[in-house]
């Protein structure tokens, strides 16, 4: 299973990278893209949008199904990745470089509530049974 140790995770299958400046980069996990299959449409949130924790803020659609992407913590969107909208299949090719959006958390400490790689792995294994 492809779950990089340097990232944080949510139970709804987003990955979060905490950057040096405290901003967060967010995408969906390898496991999530594997469940969905071939991606064909992605809609990212507009920069400047304020998000509550758990708010639906992006949409990923595969041939099979549509799925929402949720804000991992509260904060403000500072950038969206136009490249994944133009090439949804990049999420299938490398889920951890195909980020969806970057955000500035409202409270920097909130990232500590996210799952680490080991906890996320456990969650994925439990969902498989």
């Amino acid at each position, binding site marked *: 299973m492809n779950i990089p140790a340097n990232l944080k995770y949510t139970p709804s299958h987003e990955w979060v990278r905490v950057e040096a400046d405290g901003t967060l980069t967010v995408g969906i996990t390898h496991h999530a893209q594997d469940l969905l299959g071939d991606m*064909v*449409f992605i*809609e990212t949130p507009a920069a400047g949008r304020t998000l509550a924790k758990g708010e639906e803020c992006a949409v990923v659609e595969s*041939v099979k199904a*549509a799925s929402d992407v949720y804000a991992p913590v509260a904060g403000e969107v500072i950038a969206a990745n136009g490249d994944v909208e133009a090439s949804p299949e990049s999420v299938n090719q490398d889920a951890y470089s195909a980020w969806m959006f970057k955000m500035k958390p409202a409270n920097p400490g909130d990232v500590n509530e996210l799952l680490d790689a080991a906890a996320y792995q456990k969650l994925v294994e439990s969902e498989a049974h």
Partner: protein
Amino acid sequence: MLKQTPLNATHRELGAKMVDFGGWDMPVNYGSQIEEHHTVRSGCGLFDVSHMLPLDIRGANVRVFLRRLVANNVDKLQISGKALYSCMLNEAGGVIDDLIIYFMNETWFRLVVNAGTAEKDLAWMEKMNADWGMGLTLTPRRDLAMIAIQGPNATQALNEALPGVDQITANLKPFNAAAMGEMFIARTGYTGEDGFEVMVLAKSAPFFWKALMEAGGKPIGLGARDTLRLEAGMNLYGQDMDETTSPLESGLAWTVDLKTERDFVGRAALEKSEVTQQLAGLVLLDKGVLRSHQKIHTKNGHGEITSGTFSPTLQQSIALARIPLGIAPGEEVEVDIRDKKLKAKVVKYPFVRNGKVLI
């Protein structure tokens, strides 16, 4: 406990992603669903469709029985091996199932019915058999596996995998079948491409599948089967029609024979009914993906998508939708997708046949 086809272990060896498909443990893809889709349009794909049920009906009255049982007219079947697509209706004119009927001889017709409706269909047919005093024998053929071989290279792959079959494939016209020993070879499919649906004894299926792969056939999951059939404009039971919908409002009027005097179950209800809706093709003009149950706004009122997907051939989203009459191809409608109203164009379907875009 999920039901398994005779090819279950084969799919697992091939690394298929298996899903619960109406109670059956089936392969949804073996990697990329989109690549599998293109393989069928350009080469040769193999599908395990053994979850569908072949059903043999034997007896002196089998033609008389089928004349009353189904909405299409089995009297169109006069040459052995000829196939007919039909709906089986309830008394209210709703669709119990859609099925293919193969005429073998006057005491033997073979039907192929959908997996999810097989038990219901069988119970209904047995009831009619008894009620009408037909004295027929209905034999579900769970001892058979069914493999669909589809695509421009299907004939070549089948000929190579099965020595001697070229004598049959050379002369087999679309929508015809032939028996070869225990095998049953039909030039039918659900992809819009040339190809075959071959029934073999269950125990022979894994060997036959491997021979087809060695002959160039690539395994294709049920995911691509759905995008292929939708591009080909073929209805899916349970989505595009069911017991509550009329075939006349489901794009299936061409399969309902009202020209002859023949009485069949559902006819009286259909003739009394007022047709107010049609099944239409849609192409999404904005970005996004059409999905079943999305609401449609037209100048004549609301409609609903019955099947929607992303079309790998067209590289845009397409759908079948039930919309009011009077909306013609070329007109624009709006579709509710999440919090937006997106523009779609009504088109005449099929969208794709034999590898060519038709819209």
